[in-house]
């Protein structure tokens, strides 16, 4: 029983890990505090679920959901690059507007997917859990490797420079507006992909699915950074996924210990607040890590 719970939690961690990768792209790489993910996650779920119920192939539905998220990101970026609206506000506007869009797409607040074919339906008599875990590992690995490769391309380094020193990269002939648009499109497309996978995994899409996405994403990001990050982009990306898994494990644990689910969001907010306000924790973790390493080297 506990083993199954553990497995499911890890799988959730992998799916939400895609959100964390998207949040890493916007918050860390692009240095853009994008809150639209609270809207693009349920958008992905809404589009995928509606299409699946309408009889489309679940992979096609997932792909279209991903593209829809990209459009959401484009909208956010457009508000900022065209009208110079503050990044924080652009995300809030997109997220708020998308709530209505999502309801419209779904036609009702909840779409059950039980009985429909989803991407996790295991072929050739493979055991369901094995297939699901394998598929998720595959998708997440492909994403991590693609993002890593992308960030090393000519456009990718220009995107990173946009987040690091906008003035410099402008002087070097790069239109930073385009870079921001590109980054936000990729980030939100990934978040919507995650939303499309979540609804198929849990068997329903709900219009309230997005609430707290960004806070959960940030909590995972911070946990990942504290525990695993180290001067390498590849390692950062893997850290995001691991951070997501650990965050989901923490949630599963406190629920298992008897915390009423209604308190989950409050707890998530506290995790982020504690991590942000106590740099000592981060320094402490780094220190422990270093000590551990030097012990390992000495022995």
């Amino acid at each position, binding site marked *: 029983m506990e083993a199954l719970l553990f497995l499911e939690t890890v799988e959730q961690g992998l799916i939400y890990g895609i959100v964390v990768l998207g949040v890493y792209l916007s918050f860390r790489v692009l240095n853009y505090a994008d809150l639209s993910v609270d809207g693009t996650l349920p958008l992905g779920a809404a589009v995928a679920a509606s299409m699946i119920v309408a009889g489309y192939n679940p992979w096609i539905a997932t792909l279209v959901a991903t593209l829809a998220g990209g459009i959401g990101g484009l909208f956010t970026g457009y508000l900022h690059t065209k009208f110079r609206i503050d990044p924080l506000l652009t995300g809030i506007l997109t997220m708020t507007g998308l709530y209505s869009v999502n309801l419209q797409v779904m036609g009702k607040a909840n779409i059950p997917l039980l009985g429909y074919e989803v991407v996790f339906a295991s072929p050739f008599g493979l055991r369901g859990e094995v297939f699901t875990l394998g598929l998720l590992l595959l998708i997440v690995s492909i994403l991590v490797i693609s993002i890593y490769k992308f960030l090393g*391309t000519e456009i990718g380094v220009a995107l990173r420079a946009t987040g690091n020193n906008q003035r*410099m990269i402008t*002087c070097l002939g790069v239109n930073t507006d385009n870079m921001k648009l590109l980054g936000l499109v990729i980030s939100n497309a990934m978040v919507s992909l995650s939303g499309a996978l979540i609804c198929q995994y849990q068997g329903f899409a709900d219009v309230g699915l997005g609430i707290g996405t960004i806070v959960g994403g940030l909590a995972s990001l911070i946990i990942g950074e504290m525990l695993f990050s180290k001067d390498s982009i590849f390692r950062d990306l893997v850290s995001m996924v691991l951070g997501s898994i650990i965050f989901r494990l923490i949630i599963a644990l406190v629920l298992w210990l008897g915390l009423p689910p209604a308190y989950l969001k409050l707890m998530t907010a506290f995790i982020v607040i504690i991590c942000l306000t106590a740099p000592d924790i981060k320094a402490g973790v780094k220190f422990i890590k270093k000590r551990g390493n030097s012990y390992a080297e000495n022995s």
Partner: protein
Amino acid sequence: MLKIVNLTKIFNPGTINEKKALDNINLHLKEGDLVTIIGSNGAGKSTLMNAISGAIAVDKGKIYIDNIDVTSQPEYRRGKFIGRVFQDPMTGTAAEMTVEENLVLALKRGQKRTLRKSIKNPERVLFREQLKLLGLNLENDLRQKVGLLSGGQRQALTLLMATITKPKLLLLDEHIAALDPQIANLVMELTKQIVKTNRLTALMITHDLHQALAVGNRTIMMHKGRMLFELKGEERKRATVETLLGLFRKQREAEGRSFCFLA
């Protein structure tokens, strides 16, 4: 090469903070000119560079580079052919990226950026070769984060980044002012060398009057948004720091009289 016609920039127009930072500036640079600009704080020197590079929009006048009107081109577009080095070494480099990543960002100036892998071995060979010329041991660790370098190393790197593609115009805004004297000298020597070997056209702002005369072939004095005078040719060769101070005093006195006259 560079032609500036009747350039005027007013900050905060129509408010009590109104400030005429550039007042009808005219300037003509020929290919290969290295012009030093001097002037007191607030004279408008940096504003002039910001106007040329497109970092700020001007109110009146035109800017031509190679006979192309760039006055309304956005900054990033002019960035394709203008190299800049700022006073603050932090401004010209990306701290969280490596030395080679910073260099490759500069190497692609003016080219279309694609989805090709940005750094391969030929680039590394080029970077090592160029970094060796700086003499700051930067060639030994291309994967070092730029944020870990000293101010002088960062500024030398910025200079290399600004010139690695041989820009049409190089703008140097007090680029050695924040460095300790020894490294400042080194960066200045590098600047002269790079400008000379690549036959660059450049503007250099400095507060060091001696240096203003020692470097380049023309010197311009700015004051209150205007160009007070220019020294070039024989006149400049004979000039000393005292000459500059004398000319400056004379101009200000003339100005003072005109104020008295008005009052």
